[in-house]
């Protein structure tokens, strides 16, 4: 395993003073209070924190999937010299699915039930790489599906989502998210809905994608032992702010914040 040697210092994504506040329910609801973080090229950054601490909102903000009409957005998310939080929709779309991809917690419902798997895996290429022929797209899709650990990708290519298990659907999601070799992959609790064995396989797959393609991964999870195994660095969120960040070793072996300590205490000791 490449482990920590992959981390280069070059930041690929910088979040500065991110603030996300809902204003559509009359009384304002702060989802992210004041968050700053840096994602480095080729690293796996773990994001942990209690329910409602703003992890998913942060992830959606990076992936450009926030409903801007319902939110007040403050601060900036810098990628490639562009502020993803305030840039135009078309600039955002230029990166979505090509440079920044996302996979979700719910593999059962995240695929279009009426479209064949192959079409969905290829979609980012159809949108961003019009220069590719249909045959080239199919080839790339099948390669991505094979790399995502789908046995017999040619066959799965022609299937529909309902014919696949949850684990296979998450692999399809990963294939679709990585088909255009993005620089950043955001994974919001990608294994929560899966059984333990499948979970371990998906984690191994994410590690492999990171090691082989140098894709930076933002890995959100409630499972601290998974985060400990997978992530180079970790940030701990609570009520919309990062209360602690550092390398996995720093955070898990030597937690400085009382809240982090309580989280770490809750992990079975064998893992640490």
């Amino acid at each position: 395993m490449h482990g920590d040697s992959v981390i280069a210092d070059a930041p690929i994504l910088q979040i500065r003073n991110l603030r996300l506040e809902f204003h559509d329910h009359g009384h304002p609801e702060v989802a992210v209070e004041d968050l700053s973080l840096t994602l480095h090229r080729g690293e796996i950054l773990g994001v942990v924190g209690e329910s409602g601490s703003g992890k998913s909102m942060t992830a959606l903000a990076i992936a450009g999937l926030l409903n801007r009409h319902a939110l007040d957005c403050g601060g900036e998310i810098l990628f490639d010299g562009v502020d993803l939080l305030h840039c135009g929709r078309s600039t955002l779309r230029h990166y979505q699915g090509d440079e920044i991809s996302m996979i979700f917690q719910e593999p059962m419902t995240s695929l279009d039930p009426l479209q064949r798997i192959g079409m969905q895996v290829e979609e980012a290429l159809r949108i961003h790489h019009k220069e590719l022929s249909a045959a080239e797209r199919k080839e790339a899709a099948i390669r991505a599906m094979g790399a995502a650990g789908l046995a017999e990708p040619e066959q799965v290519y022609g299937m529909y989502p309902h014919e696949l298990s949850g684990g296979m659907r998450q692999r399809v999601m990963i294939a679709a998210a990585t088909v255009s070799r993005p620089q950043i992959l955001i994974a919001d609790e990608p294994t929560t809905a899966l059984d333990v064995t499948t979970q371990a396989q998906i984690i191994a797959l994410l590690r492999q994608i990171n090691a082989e393609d140098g894709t930076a991964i933002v890995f959100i999870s409630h499972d601290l032992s998974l985060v400990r195994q997978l992530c180079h660095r970790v940030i701990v969120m609570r009520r919309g702010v990062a209360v602690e960040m550092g390398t996995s070793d720093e955070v898990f072996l030597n937690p400085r914040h009382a809240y982090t300590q309580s989280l770490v205490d809750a992990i079975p000791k064998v893992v640490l």
Partner: protein
Amino acid sequence: MRYVLKKTATTLATLLVVSLLLFVAFQLISGDPATHILGTGATPERLAALRAELGLDQPLPARYLMWLTAFARGDAGVSYVYHQSVSSLLSAKVPVTFALAAMSFVLMCAIGLPMGIACAKHAGSPIDRAVMVANQIIMAIPPFFAGILISWAFGMGLHLFTPGGYVSYETSVPRFLGYLVFPAVAIALPRAAQLAKLLRGSLLEEAGKNYARTAYSRGNNTNGVLYGHLLKNAFLPALTFLGMSLGTMLAGSLVVERVFNIPGISSILLASIGNRDYPVVLATVMLIAVFIIFVNLLVDILYKVLDPRIDEE
């Protein structure tokens, strides 16, 4: 394929049951056809002779089979009142009614589908809200009243067409269709309003699902998500409505034909009901039943084509 065969078999079975029920029901209510034809003053001998000629002395199952096979060949018996074959009475009128219903259906789709899509796309905007309020009103207008309004406004007011100036399709097909446009609008409008509302709601529901978010995450613009993913999913609930609409359009045609003086089956059906001319009524009802049952088959097959989740069982 097995699904289609199975649905076709079910359809044929349904047809048989419906035809049997209709036949028996008309036997019960219509009394003795020979008396109808010859009048109450006829001698018993002549009545018996006619009964034998019409096959009325046979047992009921045999009469049903005779009637069914004859109907399948296009022979629906003889009218009690006009003393000519039912098929010759109806043959010129049936195409008119079905053309009107078909045109209404096409208009309903042409108005309702784009309107539903546009409203969903701009949901919450002033235009969307205005259209939805207008829809609510239009939905409540029955076709005959819409017909009277349209006939008055476009016919007598704007002189865009001549009320009563019906042109037969045998004379000129374009002018025939041209005359049908306004009545068809009257039939289509309330259903189009319902269709728009249904599709809008269905699209908005689909837009809230996880796969829509996935589609955006791949760099789709709104149209890409809408036409690439949402529309097909949102169309499924609308399909049943479209199927049912064909029946509604037919019923609407019967009413609106009266308003616009269109020589479809409406006038002869109403006259025959009044005259107790049962062969004509039975044939017309049977035609409508066959039509609706086949539309249902078509809807089932379309579901199968659109939705891979419908299993082959």
